[in-house]
């Protein structure tokens, strides 16, 4: 891994994880009226540590249409909420999910900002001005 890669990789992994989290929470909001749907989320710290330590992760590859996808995709640290289900067994709390989604979007922009300043710093160093 080149020094440029390693200086950016932490932010890149964070960005990737936050976009995956946005995807999961969008799914929760979309399924707020689906019976027996369990709200899901990523255990951010555990998943981040797993990826930064270089363990192979991410989604399972399927090479045949008959291959089954595991429930909740291939990522290892997905949590399912069992609390607060109404009589239809749905555990999505719409307001909570909306707040989490917005928070995650802001954190995504924070990561972007950090990545941008890293790139600016590298550019400055390369130019030597």
């Amino acid at each position, binding site marked *: 891994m080149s020094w440029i890669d390693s200086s950016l990789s932490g932010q890149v992994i964070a*960005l*990737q994880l936050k*976009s*995956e989290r*946005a*995807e*999961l929470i*969008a*799914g*929760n*909001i*979309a*399924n*707020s*009226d*689906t*019976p027996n*749907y369990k709200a*899901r989320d990523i255990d951010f710290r555990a998943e981040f540590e797993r990826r930064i330590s270089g363990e192979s992760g*991410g*989604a399972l*590859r*399927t090479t045949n249409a008959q291959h089954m*996808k595991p429930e*909740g*995709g*291939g*990522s290892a640290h*997905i949590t399912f909420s069992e609390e607060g289900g109404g009589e239809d067994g749905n555990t999505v709390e*719409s307001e909570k999910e*909306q707040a989490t*989604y*917005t928070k995650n*979007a802001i954190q*995504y*922009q924070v990561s*972007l900002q950090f*990545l*941008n300043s890293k*790139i*600016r710093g590298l*550019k400055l160093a390369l130019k030597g001005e």
Partner: protein
Amino acid sequence: MSLESVFGVGQSALVAQTYRLNVIAENLANAEVPAGTPDGAYKGQYPIFKSVLSEVDGSMAMSVKIDGVAEDQRPARSSYEPGNPIADEDGFVYMSNVNSVQEMASMMAASRSYQTNIEVMNTAKDLLMRTLTIGQQ
């Protein structure tokens, strides 16, 4: 890139909520239609949703799919109208079992849910647009 699949998920939710609104409109339109027999009265309907893994490869997000329509099993409302030509021999006509107030509340919920999903897609769009400008400042 995972953020792109937010659009697929959001779109499936918009389709589902639109369908729900259609069914509600149908229920409300038929709420006051009388029939001569309890079986002939209009039965309220409601959509059943289910979640499916989104079709984008490697995605973990759950989209919404319409699994079918269920019929309201409550008995039809009877009303004594001996002058009505379709009344049965006891003078009763039968109205649908639709509860208008319930349908209106359900309509509000569907429309709020539609708005929320559009908001979600808008936010995802903003994030993607910002991502495109990485390293340009």
